[in-house]
């Protein structure tokens, strides 16, 4: 089901946040009479956005907080250099004669090393996960039970415990793309990049895969951490081809990779 007039349909979110002119609002409301896509979207988004607007403070407070992100490698190196200079300042006077020499060496090092690396571009954040409801009458298998236990740990950001359970789940059922995907992601979030790549690649090979786009996205990022430009580009191009949730980010990251000088 697609919007019958995307130019009007795209106003949907602005409609819910009262950001349309009177004319635009009338056009959008008339469109609701004709378009099933926007009608259904309005049905759901209306309740959700109403909640955000009636009691905005908790949402604003939560959204204003910066999420913890990986410290880029370039920043870690910069902090190291700053620490080095401070340490030199604490050295006795006679030894301090070496400071200009050391400073020159540090400067030289900073000048000759590349300004940025592929791994600085990696964007690795956990994807949201919420336990799926098991329909009445269907008993969870051992694999599903272990998976849910693993994902409970994942939601708590306890990736080590999550990995333990997911590995066991995969022993019971090695053909489930979701199991491999989340295990790969947990490895990636625990900086075990090689294992992450192994499981993300496995995810991609499995049929009926609801996490294919995400698997390519995280695989691309894992290859960035490995400084493998060609593999990263190939994975991100796959994401763009799929035109899904990560299309925009993938396009951006491809642009950034292409701007970096090749080694």
């Amino acid at each position, binding site marked *: 089901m697609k919007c019958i007039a995307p130019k009007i349909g*795209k106003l*949907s*979110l*602005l409609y819910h*946040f*009262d*950001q349309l002119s009177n004319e635009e609002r*009338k*056009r959008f*409301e*008339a469109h*609701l*009479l*004709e378009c*099933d896509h926007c*009608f*259904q*979207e*309005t*049905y*759901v*988004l*209306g*309740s*959700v956005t109403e*909640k*955000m*607007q009636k*009691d*905005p403070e*908790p*949402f*604003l407070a*939560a*959204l*204003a907080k*910066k*999420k913890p*992100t990986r410290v880029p490698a370039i920043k870690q190196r910069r902090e190291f250099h700053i620490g080095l200079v401070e340490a030199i300042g604490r050295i006795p006077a006679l030894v301090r004669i070496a400071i200009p020499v050391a400073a020159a060496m540090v400067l030289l090092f900073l000048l000759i090393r590349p300004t940025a690396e592929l791994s600085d571009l990696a*964007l690795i*954040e*956990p*994807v*949201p*996960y*919420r336990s799926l*409801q098991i*329909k*009445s009458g269907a008993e969870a298998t051992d694999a599903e039970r272990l998976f849910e236990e693993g994902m409970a740990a994942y939601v708590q950001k306890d990736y080590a415990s999550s990995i333990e359970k997911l590995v066991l789940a995969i022993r019971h059922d090695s053909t489930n793309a979701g199991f491999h995907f989340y295990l790969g992601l947990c490895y990636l979030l625990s900086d075990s990049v090689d294992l992450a790549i192994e499981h993300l690649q496995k995810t991609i090979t499995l049929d009926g895969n609801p996490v294919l786009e995400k698997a390519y996205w995280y695989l691309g990022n894992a290859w960035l951490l490995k400084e493998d430009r060609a593999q990263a580009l190939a994975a991100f191009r796959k994401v763009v081809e799929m035109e899904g*949730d990560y299309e*925009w*980010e993938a396009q951006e990251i491809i642009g950034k990779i292409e701007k970096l000088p090749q080694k």
Partner: protein
Amino acid sequence: MMEPEPGIDGLLSAAKRGEKTAENRLFSLLRARILNLAQRRIKGRDPAWQPDDVVQEVFKVMCAPDEFQGKPKYQTIAPDHFWQWFFTIVRHKIGDRIRKHPDTNLDAVVLELQPSEDDPAREAWDEELKRLIQQVVSQMRAKDRQTIHALILKSQGYDLPDEVASLSQSAWDSRVSRFRKKFRNALKKFDLDL
């Protein structure tokens, strides 16, 4: 040349004036939309599902006489509030149907299971929905969280953060449009699906 289709305001005004054609057109368009929506949300839950039942129940409420003027209720609603009023009725009617059938998975958080205002369970339901939405938005990526943050700020009349205020109108529109798609998908993952 064909006349452009009148919007909801036009159809409601014409129906108020007693124009049968406009009234029929309005109800025929609404019927098609409700059928499609109800089919998606009830299918698989209710074995006794008759697609037209919800439509009839919604229309019954819409056409019930208003207690002060005696006119059909839908004719007394201000056009600006029509959709909000209409979606509330649809939500209640779909919710009634879901509740009536014990095989329905009531653990799933669905918008239709909203208790009424005077129900003691309403507060807990409101909190749960708020928590879910917060979880959805807080787990989105930085740029997307910035977009929803700015949308809430704008709707509340607050000043926008510099990085958003400096965007051109087209860049902002494009960002909101992209965010909309992601937001829908994120809601879907949390059972608040379309």
